């Protein structure tokens, strides 16, 4: 059994809900009408485009094509991590740091899942590779941007305390150990919470999609468990490597706190 196709009319009815919401936003002076319209439009255009790309991709499953698309996804996720920082590393190093951490964690976890666990032939079968990598990148991106933001913000506020510890002879890594631990926790808490609540509060999106698509609930559940584990591992390792790299960037070879490496976004 395939999924029942939606007609443009079906989507228009859902869009009417947003128009009503926009009217309320205007009446209540929330000022969100424009953002709402732009985001709704972006969702439509971006998803229609990726639908076309995936259609072509599924028709010719070449490794090169899959790699190219995953690189684009990675680059955009890296940009998104940067955009969410209140204080970010100057120049391209912030982008490289976020992107590098996501690459290390998401790509290695996705590779293990595809080549060892799911083991399709070929292992990069795009119907599996692209959605899996997308989910991993999306969640790792959240975790990394949360923890980087927490780390730079806390360092900024507690710079005098950190410098006091440096003056007493601690290394940069020792002086920021507690701050780094807290930042790692704040990056990992969301996925830990959603693992704990999965199935009780909400049915995860991927599982819902699979059930709508006609899979048996038990198959969908098993895939969802796999994906949860992968996301937790990917986010955790991504956050850890991002915090390690960020500490190295924010202290120089003489263990000085270099907050001049950060610039504040307006």
């Amino acid at each position, binding site marked *: 059994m395939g999924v029942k196709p939606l007609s443009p009319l079906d989507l228009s009815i859902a869009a009417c809900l947003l128009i009503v919401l926009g009217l309320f936003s205007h009446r209540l002076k929330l000022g969100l009408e424009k953002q709402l319209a732009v985001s709704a439009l972006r969702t439509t255009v971006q998803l229609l485009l990726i639908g076309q790309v995936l259609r072509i991709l599924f028709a010719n499953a070449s490794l090169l094509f899959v790699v190219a698309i995953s690189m684009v996804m990675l680059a955009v996720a890296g940009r998104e991590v940067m955009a969410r920082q209140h204080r970010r590393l100057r120049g391209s190093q912030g982008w490289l740091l976020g992107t590098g951490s996501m690459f290390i964690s998401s790509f290695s976890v996705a590779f293990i899942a595809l080549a060892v666990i799911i083991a399709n032939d070929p292992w990069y079968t795009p119907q599996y590779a692209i959605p899996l990598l997308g989910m991993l990148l999306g969640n790792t991106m959240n975790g990394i941007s949360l923890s980087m933001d927490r780390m730079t913000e806390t360092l900024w506020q507690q710079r005098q305390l950190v*410098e*006091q*510890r440096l*003056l*007493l*002879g601690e*290394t940069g890594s020792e002086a920021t150990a*507690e701050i780094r631990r807290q930042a790692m926790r704040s990056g990992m808490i969301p996925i830990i919470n959603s693992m704990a609540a999965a199935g009780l509060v909400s049915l995860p999106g991927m599982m819902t999609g699979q059930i709508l698509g006609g899979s048996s609930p038990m198959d969908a559940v098993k895939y969802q468990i796999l994906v949860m584990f992968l996301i937790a591992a990917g986010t955790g390792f991504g956050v850890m490597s991002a915090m390690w790299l960020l500490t190295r960037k924010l202290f120089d070879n003489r*263990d*000085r706190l270099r907050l001049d490496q950060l610039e504040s976004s307006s």
Partner: protein
Amino acid sequence: MNDLQISGLFFQNRGPYTFRIVPGQVVGLQGASGAGKTLLLRAIADLDPNQGQVRLGDMAREQVPAPIWRKTVAMLPAESFWWFDAVGDHFQVPVQAIEATLQQLGFESDVLNWEVSRLSTGEKQRLAIVRLLQNKPRALLLDEPTASLDAENIERTETLLVDYCRQQQVPLLWVSHDSRQLERVADDQYYIEGDGTLQEVRGGQHGR
């Protein structure tokens, strides 16, 4: 001899500074606010990027890792910061090693069980000096060490610090706004002008 030699020290468009403090000598440093007294101490402690040479006796800064340098040439910042809940957690040495210093500054050793949040500004200041001295520094850089203390504690603190300097034969650089204090404690005095130039104060009284 472990004298503190600063030569051609340059940072943030200030300097170059060249001067020398011999073991057991207290050098006072005054200057307008914003003249860069704290920045000078931070540069010597290698806490801010800077150029130039700083040596303690035969040891050049670059020969040792920065944390070792900062334990050896120890800087006391004007405001002290504490990160654990209990005072004692900030000390890595056994109680016996700091008991005498604590008493000289008017504390019993049970102060180590106190909560940091209960300390007054002055208590924090005095305890920060004990915390600094636990590393047995070989040179001292003090930024307003008695700024928040009452008269009795100012005297205790001055005595403790000058005694440490004389007995351990360490060079001591003492920043203060109080010229009468510097007359009491300092053997020689420098003044930093608003533009950052350093001048030796002539006719400065020799203390003690």
